[in-house]
Every structure is written in structure tokens, then in C-alpha cells.
């Protein structure tokens, strides 16, 4: 089995606070892993650390991605190496056009791989096609990144970016939160359309409902900065019934 992401004994602090405490997780290529866990347990921290956000101190542990040391790479290098973070709270960037960003992102990755820039016309056709899939109105093409988007629109826009960038590893932080039922299905369709033997997903979610649409290979429960329990999709159903207390107690 080919492990795409290998996190070993990861310890991370933010200021004085220890947020991740010996987190170990392997994600083989082609698999979908769900990460659940109580508020504040460190899920977004993990996602940010994987994407290389500054402000986190890695005090111990290693992360390897495609066999290389992920933590040694700058955020933009990780992105170009095929890592994609779908943000829990996508930021609005007025004045930076949506399509411009998409194209810059695609070209950055292409440049890395020695490919020429995308043809502007072909690219726009591709974007429009994916927008249709995500049911995002074409008027969003001319708007600023996430500018004035509703909560659900921002999440769909994250998936749109993912569809166009076609990452190797997508870390989606609560992409399902704040979505109505229809939008949830749209997002799930988007993710499922990208599932492939060489591509993996880490889905951070609070709701087992998402996992009805995107069936995970593994479910992990993060408690106080480490994986307290792992299982198959049955674990998500059990969490839905029983909550987190029993796992937290076991972990303590």
C-alpha cells in the first residue's frame, strides 16, 4: 500500500498552548479519511499545519508527503506539489478577481512541472464547466475572491478551486458546515468526481451526514490533539448516537 501522507507523533504549539500532542496518522493514496472530534480538539490546526500556515510551532514529530518532508516546504511549494486546503473560513479578498486567482494557481503548478501557461480561452471554458457542476452562477467570475459570497457560496467556491487544481491531497476543513441539503450534495458530488486511485482526501467534519454522500475509508476521532480512536464509517454512526464523551473519557 502506497502511503501518500504519513504523520508521525506530531506535536504543535500555538504560543504557550499545546494544540497537537503526538498525532499519528497515515493516509494511503486513493483513500478518503474523515476526521471528527469536539470543538477545539485541533482539527483546523492540523489542516493549517499541513498547508504551512505560519504561527504554529512544531515541537516534535514528522510529516511526510509523497515520501518527502512536507514541513520543509513553503506553503506555495506544498500547493504546487498537489496539496490543497479547503478553508473552514475562506477569506474575502476584494479586488483580487476569482478567475485571476484560479488561473494564477493553475499556472504556478504548471510552471513547477515545466508546462506552459494555460490557454486563456480553454481555461475559461474549463472553469465554466466546473462552475456548472458546482452550480455557481457565472456572474461570480468577475467578482473578487469570496467577495460578498454567502457562507455556502464560499464553501462551493473552495470546491470549485479544488476541481480545477486537481490536487493529490485535499484537506477539506468543515467544507460541509453551513451548507443546505442541496449544496451538501453538490459539494459531495464535486469531491466524489475527483476520487481516484492516486488521490486522497482528509475531510474534517462534525456531521456524519456528509459521510452518507462521501463514503470514507477510515474515520478518526481527534481528542485533545491526538487521534483517540479510528474505525470505519460505522464509527461515525456511533459518534452520532453517543457523542464524544465516551471517547474523551477513554482517552483520559
Amino acid at each position, binding site marked *: 500500500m502506497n502511503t501518500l501522507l504519513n504523520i508521525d507523533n506530531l506535536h504543535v504549539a500555538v504560543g504557550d498552548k499545546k494544540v497537537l500532542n503526538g498525532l499519528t496518522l497515515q493516509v494511503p493514496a486513493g483513500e478518503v479519511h474523515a476526521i471528527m472530534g469536539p470543538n477545539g480538539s485541533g482539527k483546523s490546526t492540523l489542516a493549517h499545519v499541513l*498547508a*504551512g*500556515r*505560519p504561527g504554529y510551532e512544531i515541537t516534535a514529530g514528522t510529516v511526510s508527503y509523497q515520501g518527502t518532508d512536507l514541513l520543509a516546504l*513553503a*506553503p*506555495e511549494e*506544498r*500547493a*504546487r506539489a498537489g496539496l*490543497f*486546503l479547503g*478553508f473552514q473560513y*475562506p*477569506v474575502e*479578498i*476584494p*479586488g*483580487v478577481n476569482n478567475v*485571476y*486567482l484560479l488561473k*494564477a*494557481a493553475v499556472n*504556478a*503548478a504548471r510552471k*513547477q512541472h515545466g508546462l506552459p501557461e494555460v490557454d486563456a480561452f480553454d481555461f475559461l471554458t474549463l472553469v465554466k464547466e466546473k462552475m456548472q457542476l458546482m452550480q455557481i452562477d457565472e456572474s461570480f467570475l468577475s467578482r*473578487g*475572491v469570496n467577495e460578498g459570497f454567502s457562507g455556502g457560496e464560499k464553501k462551493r467556491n473552495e470546491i470549485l*478551486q479544488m476541481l480545477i*487544481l486537481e490536487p493529490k491531497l485535499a484537506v477539506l476543513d468543515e467544507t460541509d458546515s453551513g451548507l443546505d441539503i442541496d449544496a451538501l450534495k453538490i459539494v459531495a458530488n464535486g469531491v466524489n468526481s475527483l476520487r481516484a486511485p492516486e488521490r486522497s482526501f482528509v475531510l474534517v467534519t462534525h456531521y456524519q451526514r456528509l459521510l452518507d454522500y462521501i463514503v470514507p475509508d477510515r474515520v478518526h476521532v481527534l481528542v485533545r490533539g491526538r487521534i483517540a480512536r479510528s474505525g470505519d464509517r460505522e464509527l461515525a454512526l456511533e459518534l452520532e448516537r453517543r457523542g464524544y464523551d465516551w471517547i474523551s473519557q477513554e482517552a483520559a
Partner: protein
Amino acid sequence: MSAASDLLTARIAAEHASALPDLPTSVIGRDRRLQAIGAFSARGLPINRQENWRYANLHTLHHARFTPAQPQATLEPSALPGEIEGYARYIFVDGRFAPELSHHSPHPALTIFTTGTEDTAQHIAAEQELADNRLALLNEAFATDGARIVAADTAHPTCIEVVFVATAAAQGGASYPRLQVTTQAGTRLGFIERHISLGSEANFINAVVNIEVGRGATVDHYRLQQTGAEATWMDTLSARVATDGTYRLHLANLGGQSARSTQQISLAGERASTVLNTVSVAGRLQVHDVFAVIEHAAAATQSEQRFRGVAAQQARVGFNGKVVVRTDAHGAVSRQSLRGLLAGPQAEVDVRPQLEIYTDEVQCSHGATAGKLDENMLFYLLSRGMEPEMAQLLLKWAFLEDVVAKIDLPALRGQVEHALAGQMDDTAALRELL
């Protein structure tokens, strides 16, 4: 006052006394010139310790000669910025009209002071009781030429561009651009005003613009300050807006070593309104400073002030926006959004909102921030694979575009955007946005 500025004030008065016999009386009569220099000498030059001058760089004045410059270079028309369609262009070189470079036929709305048959200039300096008229007094004392624009056609907009080219070095002499703009009731005026340097980059320019917006008239005033890298650009602008009139100002402050604009906009009639959009981009050791006072003197008047300033390297960018709402200005609406961006560890940005409100019935919303690029935005762009330098550049660009996009003449906006990109040293990286 400091001893150094006293000496300078005295030196200016002496320069004026020797220059006076040669100064054209068709522009400003001898008596008024004497009055102006007298009033100036009594008050002296502004100094940094004085209220509303603290951000300006006034040191460069000490190296300047105040006597009007003789035009130095013969200009190639190709060195001038591209013309904007529909705008007839008139050019002044070192404060003197240059007919050979200007639009071939005279404009019905434009009179050049030196060729006019009457003394058309108004007493411009008197208008600035709220802001500061000292530099305007100097212009009045030394002015060599200028133009009067009168928009009288209510059926069609009047569109004029005036370019002030400075060619002489500051040690050789100063240039005094001077404009008197009047719009009659119900007219529309589109008016582009540029300040550029050719030949020497180290000019001293002291401009005065006075604008009367008539009843129900609209003025769109586009100002581009693109003087040379070592130029000192001083400017005093006054506008008075009558009932139902609108005055919109777009100022792009880009050039100069030291650039200071003092502006006073008076909303004198009911429902008069104004929009002041300013962008300022400074690098190296540049200092850009704007002091803008808006006076709401009548009921239901409206003002909107936007400022976006970027200071890189060791530059300093200041914007001091003052709003005065008089007792009679019931129902006035005033909005202010002032934002400064620090793009270098040694740069300085100062935004200062000031409010003086003498009536209860006003709606004011005021925001002023100065800081660095937003970390969340930056990380978002990096997480999509963008180079850090490009991400920073893009965010700076977006920051400015917020205001630049409001320039509603696409060709002119394009020129401003190119100039901004050039100023940020990265036309190539931004080419897709231009």
C-alpha cells in the same frame, strides 16, 4: 517659527522684490502680488510643528529658488503622456502656456491668462480660511501664467485636459501652475490635470487650483501627480459647491520627493455633494501628504472621502481628512474611509480623521486604519501556490484598486494603473491586470 524658516521667508520676500518688475500683470496685478507677498511674509512658511503640517516634508523648500523658472528644455511632444479621447489638451511648461504643444485650436471654455484681454484671475488665496493658504499666497505673488476654464454649455459636457510640465531644476527656479475653474448652473465639466517632469527630475512646483461648482453642475476632476523623483510638489486646491452641485475629485499621488496637497472643499449650497478619492503610492524616501478639509455648510449636503496609501521602503504617506459640519447643515451625510498600508519595515503611514460637528442631525461613518497586509489573505494566496512576492504585490494592487476602479474614464484609469504598477516596480508581474 524656527530661525531657518524665518530666514527662508525673508529670502522669498527678497526674491519677490527682484522678480516683481518682470511678473506679468495680465495674470495678477502688481498690487495684488504685493498684498500676497505681504500676507505671506507676515505669517511665514508652514513648519512641521504646526497643526496639519506634521506629515509633510518641508525641508526640500530650503534648496529651492522661488523666482519663476525659465523653461529649460525644448520638449518633444512624444515625451508627453497619451491623450485621452474627447479631451482637448493644453500644456504649460514651467508655469507658462506652450501653444506649440497644445491642442491646435483654442477651446471656447478656456482662457489663458497671459493672452487674455482682461485680468481674469480671482483672488484664489482668500478661499482657504479653513485649511491653509500660505502656499497659495506664494503662487499669487509669483504666478507667471495659468488658465481660466468656464463651463457654460448645458447641452454637452465640457472636457479639457491641462498638463503642467516642469523642466527646470529647483535651484534654477520655481513653477507656479494656476487654474481658475467656474462651472455655470447645470453644466458638466470633465477636467484632467496632470503634473509631470521632463528634463530635470528635481523641480519645485507650487500649484493653485480654484473651482466654483455652479447650481446643479457636476465637475469630475482627475488629477495625476507624476512629477520627477526629486521634485517638490506643493498644491493648494479649493472648491466651492453650490446647491445641487457635485464635485468629484480623483487624485493619484505618485511622483515627487516631497508632495503635499492642501485641499478645502466647501459644500455651500443645499444638497451639494463631493467625493474625494485619493491614492498615494510612495517608495524610496518619498513623502506624500494630503490635508483635505470638507466643510458642510448647508442642509442635506453629502461627502465621501476615500484614501488608499501605500508606503514602501523608507517612504512616508500621510492623509489628514477633516470634516466640519456647520450648525445649519441638517441632514448632512459624511462618509470617510481612510486606509494606509505599510509595505516596508522602515516605511511610515499616517491616516488621521478629524471631525468637527456642530449639529445633531448628521450621519457620519468614519473608518481609518493603517497597517500591514492581511495575513489571512496572504496565506490564502500562498496556499493556492502563488509566489510570496506576487501575492504581496497582488494584495497591494487590490488595496489600491478599491479606489482606482472608481476612475470612470477607462483610458485614464489604464494610464493610472500603469503608473501605479511602475511605481510598485512590477509592471511585468501585473501585466494581466492592466
